[in-house]
């Protein structure tokens, strides 16, 4: 029952759009529902990156804290987006904090579980990589604009 409901939810999330049923059947085993209250942290910088999240509702701020300046938000993510890429590569550690700005519901995908399944089935692995690549590239392109400080005066 629980798994059927989750499978439908996962397949409806934009990240898994049009995924083959056989693959969905595999990944759903790594999934679970989670929820975060406003102000609650999903994870902190330096902690083990053992899951990634598909945001269903709500909004998160990705932050890096600096002494004196406090928490610096460099990105917000919301409904339909995914949070977490550090789980893909060793040492599997979060590089920033993620904090819920409002009540946020998400699907948490167990990283070790998913990594194992991708190793066992390379076709699944390739499908997952093809889904991650556009996210990574878009984030990189957007990040370039942010660091160029295009709104600065540069006088």
């Amino acid at each position, binding site marked *: 029952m629980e798994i059927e409901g989750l499978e439908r939810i996962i397949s409806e999330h934009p990240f898994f759009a049009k995924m083959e049923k056989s693959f969905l059947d595999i990944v759903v085993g790594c999934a679970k529902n989670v929820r975060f209250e406003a102000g609650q942290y999903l994870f902190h910088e330096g902690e083990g990156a053992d899951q990634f999240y598909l945001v269903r509702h709500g909004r998160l*701020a990705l932050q890096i804290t600096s002494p004196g300046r406090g928490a610096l938000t460099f990105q917000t993510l919301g409904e339909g987006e995914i949070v977490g890429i550090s789980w893909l590569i060793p040492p599997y550690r979060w590089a920033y904090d993620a904090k819920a700005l409002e009540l946020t519901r998400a699907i948490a995908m167990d990283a070790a579980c998913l990594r194992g399944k991708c190793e066992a089935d390379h076709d699944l692995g390739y499908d997952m990589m093809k889904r991650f690549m556009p996210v990574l590239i878009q984030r990189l392109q957007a990040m370039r604009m942010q660091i160029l400080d295009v709104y600065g005066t540069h006088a």
Partner: protein
Amino acid sequence: MSAADPMLPRVARVRRRRRDGPDVWTLDVDPPEGFTYTPGQFNMLTAFGVGEAPISMSGDCAKTGRLIHTIRAVGAVSSALTRLGPGDAVGVRGPFGVGWPMEVAAGHDVVVVAGGLGLAPVRPALYRLLTERSRYGKVALLYGTRRPEEILFRAELEEWRRRLDIQIEVTVDHAIGDWYGNVGVATTLIPRARFDPVNTIAIVCGPEIMMRFASVALRDAGVAPGSIYLSMERSMKCAIGFCGHCQFGPVFVCKDGPVFPYEKISRLLSMREI
């Protein structure tokens, strides 16, 4: 404006001055008699004894007794203009340029993408869209700026956000502390905007890098290159096509623009140092 000498400024008086950002001020000027303009046009404003600069109008064209200019202090002339106060004289030449395609946009959805100070030249278009709301389809404003403290016209944006007939999305490049809004570049707002790409006119205004990427993002979202309009900026000493400074390839930004359809200038935009 004197028909005999288009380089002769008319003298106007500043009524009020308001700070709108860390280095941004809005001047409320008593306009020269009979002065009218359309959204997207600009004036050449003179700070007597210092010089002249092109500044877009940022107010409501329908309010003919008021002339509003939002100015960022980036150089000697703009800084002098931002120091003018009530009662001070300011020289006005204009209106100049081709403005936003308000008539072309009638019957279409309208997406306005603004960055930084770019919100000022599009504000007259927003006033027109809201005043004549029934002439347009869905209307969305996507606004990005550097930090929350630099959000221009914040109170007005919040007021518009409370309306049911316009979508307002705001983002900043980075935020410190208490900011619960979006963080990320303005282009990330486009997928979230509600509009029908094949029946949309897009108005884009901001730093050139931002306009270039926003135009590509709109085009990739399905808006036709001929339906995306940008407001270009170049050095101007005359605003009437004589000084030669504002040339951008074959076009003079002052009189062939400053508003151009993306289709007309996309090749020039991708060239370095043109």
